[in-house]
């Protein structure tokens, strides 16, 4: 986002001149992007309006002056006021062009300018009280002018050309609308086809391949389980992308990868539950490696079919638990022969200021609790 505060109220769509597909300054393309129609329609409208006493050209200059260049900050106050004046002028020219007499146009213009001023005080960065006063004067002047002019002129000379314009709009609008609608329907159909093709490709590459592999080796139960589990993991990552950490390089991401490797290697299920996440740095990296070692131990030695992992990362503190319901062991009885725990888990955690606790008893399963306190404390 840009640095300056956005002053436009949310109801105004922010129109920018467009870099993409511009012909002159990108005004038409920018308007088309925001409104959601083809830029050609906008250009055509501007070109047609140019025949109405040059209204199109004036409107274009107004837009150029008023709208921000793509990606740049909004233009200064003077440019914006000039832009609005040019746009109002172009509307007056256009109304004159379709035959509305000056006696109606000028009062209308005054009233409109007053209303725009009143509504747009914030947008133009003007003081509110002065703007309101100015707006009231403009509206009043418009009404007085209208009454003054039209007590004399006859109503028919005033309204007939306007009726022609209205009729033209009524005739042309449905056609333009249908054209735009057809284009949308076509695009939606194309997107649907593309999605279906992607789905088919995905299913073919992964699910069908896995099923074929399973049918070829139906008797190797462990291999079948591993294949099914790998497929499940892939599908889940694709179907529920927000549950799987999408951002590369977070703690949860690294933990998932480590768990997937252990599942492949040892043919167990590792269920990861997590709340919160943390970025990956030297400390959390050590945590992942320690957890990996704990998962490997649980998979290799416990005999349990499933390992539960819970990652709890909140407000800088990270805790990670690896639990199995397998055979368990007496932690005091393991001496130097099992260096895995002492070195890979405890040593790793202590070097980065964390702790590791191992709770286990024969027949009761094992839980490894890893904790990192808040950094710098």
């Amino acid at each position, binding site marked *: 986002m840009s640095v300056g505060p956005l002053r436009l109220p949310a109801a105004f769509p922010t129109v920018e001149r467009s870099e993409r597909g511009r012909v002159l300054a990108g005004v038409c393309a920018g308007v088309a992007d925001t409104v959601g129609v083809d830029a050609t329609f906008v250009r055509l409208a501007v070109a047609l309006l140019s025949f109405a006493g040059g209204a199109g050209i004036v409107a274009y200059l107004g837009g150029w002056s008023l709208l921000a260049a793509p990606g740049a900050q909004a233009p200064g106050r003077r440019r914006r006021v000039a832009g609005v004046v040019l746009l109002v002028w172009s509307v007056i020219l256009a109304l004159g062009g379709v035959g509305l007499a000056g006696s109606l146009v000028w009062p209308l213009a005054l009233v409109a300018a007053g209303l725009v001023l009143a509504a747009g005080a914030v947008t133009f960065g003007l003081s509110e009280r002065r703007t309101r006063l100015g707006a009231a004067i403009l509206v009043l002047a418009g009404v007085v002018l209208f009454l003054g002019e039209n007590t004399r002129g006859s109503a028919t000379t005033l309204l007939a050309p306007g009726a022609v314009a209205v009729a033209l709009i009524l005739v042309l609008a449905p056609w333009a609308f249908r054209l735009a609608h057809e284009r949308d329907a076509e695009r939606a159909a194309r997107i649907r086809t593309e999605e279906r093709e992607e789905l088919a490709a995905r299913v073919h590459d992964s699910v069908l391949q896995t099923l074929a592999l399973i049918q070829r080796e139906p008797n190797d139960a462990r291999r079948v389980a591993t294949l099914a589990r790998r497929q499940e993991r892939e599908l889940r990552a694709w179907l*529920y992308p*927000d549950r799987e950490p999408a951002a590369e390089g977070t703690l949860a991401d690294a933990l998932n990868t480590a768990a997937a490797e252990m599942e492949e290697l040892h043919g167990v299920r590792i269920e990861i539950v997590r*709340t*919160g996440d943390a970025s990956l740095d030297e400390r959390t990296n050590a945590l992942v490696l320690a957890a990996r070692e704990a998962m490997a131990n649980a998979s290799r030695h416990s005999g349990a079919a499933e390992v539960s992992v819970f990652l*709890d990362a909140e407000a800088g503190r990270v805790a990670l638990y690896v639990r199995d319901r397998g055979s368990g062991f007496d932690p005091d009885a393991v001496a130097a022969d099992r260096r895995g725990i002492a070195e890979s888990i405890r040593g790793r955690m202590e070097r980065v200021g964390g702790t590791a606790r191992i709770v286990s008893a024969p027949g009761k399963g094992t839980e490894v609790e890893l904790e990192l306190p808040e950094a710098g404390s």
Partner: protein
Amino acid sequence: MSRPLRRVVLVDDHDLFRAGVRSELGAAVEVVGEAGSVAEAVPLIKELDPDVVLLDVHLPDGGGQAVIMQVAPERPGVKFLALSVSDAAEDVIGVIRAGARGYVTKTISGADLTEAIHRTADGDAVFSPRLAGFVLDAFRSGEATADPELDQLTAREREVLQLIARGYRYKEIAARLHLSARTVESHVSAVLRKLQLSNRNELTRWAAQRRLI
């Protein structure tokens, strides 16, 4: 310990899965009926009036929520336990907010599922580790809310949920926190109630996204 016989209705659109569950369920659980869609399930449950309905979150003609909403007003005694392969928080939270007493994943073992059915029939809440994780996430501290009574977890409830997320069973939680099993159950039931009634933003957002409320 002998347990009373529980009458169960299975609602899942996969025949194979229903057959697997039926064969795995332990003693004192009798499958009295099966249904594969919302349209089949609603009249069947009303007719059989079982103790527990095992309910798939996703069904071809609606979801588990649709079944609960159509049955619960007429059969308040029937309890629902949601069963799903989905990892999506809004699915899980949605079915719980519709009135299910718990949620377990389809990879659960037969013994654990039997235990969960008895627990559900007794009126207790059944939380899988994953559901506990969702709830902890949804009730993250720090946000000021309109109704702290409903919108926040107590320290004890948080502790219990963390242990569930770590894979502890209720009995193990009770032993670890020096509580009675009954007290652990009442904490979990309180969390379930908050989950169903709270207006916390995260929960309403999930529910609203799926037009569940």
